[in-house]
């Protein structure tokens, strides 16, 4: 059994290694390139993109939907695993919360990037029209951001107090910051009662908020009368898709954090095995909703639906569609059925596949539909019949993803990614023959 000091030593944040510094440098370069492209976009307008009157939502909205989906992992893992009292969640939930926070911040940033006039972003609040799903989105995104912040912060308090003591001599400046952020945490009965009560409230609250966020995101599309969007299936379809994207991102992040931070004793094969089953379940549910989303319109085969589905099944977007469906859902489910498929390294590659497919999935939800309006495309430039992002769009997209990874990297650097106090408590309870479920 490890001592308290050993746990703290193992789980306390560590300085960046050389490899991490290189990683950080690469992220900053990508962010800077995207920043320059964005400055040019603001100066010149959206003409630097390949967006047009038909493909008016392009890669930026795909990114937005992807970030919204990924942010669901906090609500999904923390709330669901907590409410179902799954003890194996302990080493995973903080990373899930950090991913959620980074993703929801970037979702908010991305939607502003999509605006031709970002200086008018405030108009969405000043002139809010409550009938519009866009206004609902403007309300739910900051709400979910605050909820995720509380979800991350309350359980952190005891760990921040521990880190204050831990860095007291070796790094007084850092210790001072941890001390301020720990809010004078002493572990008193009153403090613990307040903390536990707050965690319970936020854990119950974050799940409906996560569901509302995903549903509103889906309604942005389904309330628009367009082929492939105007579907009653879209709410659950987006929620299940978010489940896949979020858990996939969690698997990849956990593998990297475990490897870089040397947390093999805390995040074990057992956790990957559980997470693998969780991911397989998410993929199966999403496959079911995909079948609903595509097979029923294919069966009905109205003229417009047929044109749209032909583009996806055999046409211009078929490579991406089948990669997303087979590579991003069917193959992971098959691999995850085997125990070897749920080993850390295998899970990492499956996670990469799932995340890549999740991003492209958002791309083919957004773009092909826009290129098949109910009113025919007539008398407009031929180039409007197709859409592929411009260099500016790719640079800004790369920058968005890099910024999310930068936030993730910095939070992982300064926060304990595995809850220290809870791990110590659980270890003690385990030795006493009990398993903590709080």
């Amino acid at each position, binding site marked *: 059994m490890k001592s308290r000091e050993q746990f703290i030593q193992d789980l306390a944040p560590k300085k960046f290694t050389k490899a991490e510094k290189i990683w950080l440098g690469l992220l900053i370069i990508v962010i800077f390139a995207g920043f320059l492209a964005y400055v040019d976009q603001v100066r010149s307008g959206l003409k630097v993109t390949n967006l047009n009157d038909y493909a008016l939502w392009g890669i930026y909205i795909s990114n937005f939907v992807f970030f919204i989906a990924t942010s669901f992992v906090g609500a999904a893992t923390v709330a669901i695993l907590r409410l179902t009292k799954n003890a194996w969640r302990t080493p995973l939930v903080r990373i899930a919360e950090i991913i959620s926070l980074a993703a929801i911040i970037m979702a908010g940033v991305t939607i502003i990037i999509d605006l031709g006039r970002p200086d008018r972003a405030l108009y969405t609040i000043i*002139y*809010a*029209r*409550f*009938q519009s799903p866009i206004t*609902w989105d403007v*309300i739910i995104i900051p*709400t979910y951001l*605050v*909820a995720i912040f*509380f979800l991350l*912060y*309350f359980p952190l*308090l005891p760990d921040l107090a521990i880190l204050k003591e831990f860095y007291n001599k070796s790094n007084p400046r850092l210790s001072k910051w941890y001390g301020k952020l720990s*809010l*004078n*945490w002493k572990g*008193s009965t*009153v*403090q613990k009662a*307040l*903390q536990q*009560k*707050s965690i319970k*409230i*936020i854990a119950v*609250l974050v799940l409906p*908020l996560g569901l509302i966020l995903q549903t509103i995101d889906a309604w942005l599309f389904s309330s628009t009368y367009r082929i492939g969007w105007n579907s009653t299936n879209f709410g659950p379809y987006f929620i299940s898709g978010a489940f896949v994207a979020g858990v996939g991102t969690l698997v990849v992040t956990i593998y990297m954090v475990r490897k870089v931070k040397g947390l093999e004793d805390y995040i074990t094969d057992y956790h990957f095995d559980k997470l693998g089953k969780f991911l397989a379940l998410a993929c199966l549910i999403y496959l079911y909703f995909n079948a609903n989303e595509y097979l029923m319109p294919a069966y009905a085969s109205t003229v417009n639906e047929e044109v749209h589905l032909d583009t996806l099944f055999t046409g211009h977007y078929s*490579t*991406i569609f089948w*990669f997303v469906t087979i590579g991003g859902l069917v193959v992971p489910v098959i691999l995850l059925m085997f125990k070897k498929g749920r080993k850390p390294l295998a899970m990492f590659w499956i996670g990469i596949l799932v995340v*890549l497919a999740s991003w*492209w999935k958002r791309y083919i939800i957004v773009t092909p539909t826009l290129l098949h309006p109910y009113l025919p495309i007539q008398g407009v430039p031929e180039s409007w019949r197709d859409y*592929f992002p411009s260099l500016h769009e790719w640079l800004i997209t790369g920058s968005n993803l890099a910024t999310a990874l930068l936030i993730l990297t910095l939070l992982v650097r300064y926060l304990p990614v595995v809850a220290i106090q809870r791990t110590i408590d659980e270890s003690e309870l385990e030795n006493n023959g009990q398993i903590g479920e709080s």
Partner: protein
Amino acid sequence: MKKFNITYFISFVIIISLNFVLGSSNLFAQTKKAKARINVDYVKVMDGEHYLNIKASARINKKTVVVSDIELSILQEFNDEEIEIGTTSTDASGMGKFIINNFEDLQPDSLGVYDLIVSFAGNELFKKSSKDVSFRNADINVEWIVKDSINYVNAKLIDTQMDSAIAEMPLVVQVERLFRPLVIGEDSYETDENGEIEVAIDDDIPGIDGNLDLEVVLSESDDYGSIIAKLAAPIGTVIVEESTFDQRTMWSPRGKTPIFLLALTYSFVFIVWGIFIYLFFNLIRINKS
């Protein structure tokens, strides 16, 4: 994604190659000047404007294309003299309109025929060309009459120069509508020896406040051009407008948001953010305890 990129690359190469070949032939074609074809129609609206509808096109590479943004001169031919009465230009769709502001100043020839010429001086892309249009001045006098509780439109076509009725000319009776007119009865009615037509109007045609904007039209006549006479008559069925303009609906402006939606949204915001405030105070209490 590798396959996807290769597909794009191959498409790119093909498109570039095709563009090179096809693009060069277009350039060659543009070195020859094409002839601009001009079509002109004279239109007279009773108690309104007299104008010329002009359309310019050309045949390039065996295709008819519109000729846009060209300057056109409008001339009157009288006693072998051509007097310029104004200019106009074609728009992006090759269409132009010239309003004859002072029709009374135009001089007909001894037979009462007006001769106008639309002339294009040519430019670096198109050769010079012109088109003449000749017409006589005519009027359509239109009135609404009631016989045996049935509404009729009576129209009389008169040659103003000769002050005589024009027989055997097709007149169309129609009601103005937003996109295209609604033709009443037959496609057209031929004028009798008195130059008249009389057409019954059904009483079930909807109109705002029951008013119908009727039109009697002589369309593209060789001798008289087009003449349109308008008549407003309260003989239609009143449209009951089911407007939701003043109601709170999902499609109203933000000032008329449905109450349930306001209540739902504000309740959500107040409850959730109320909990957040409570949690924030819990943080303060933790800090102080």
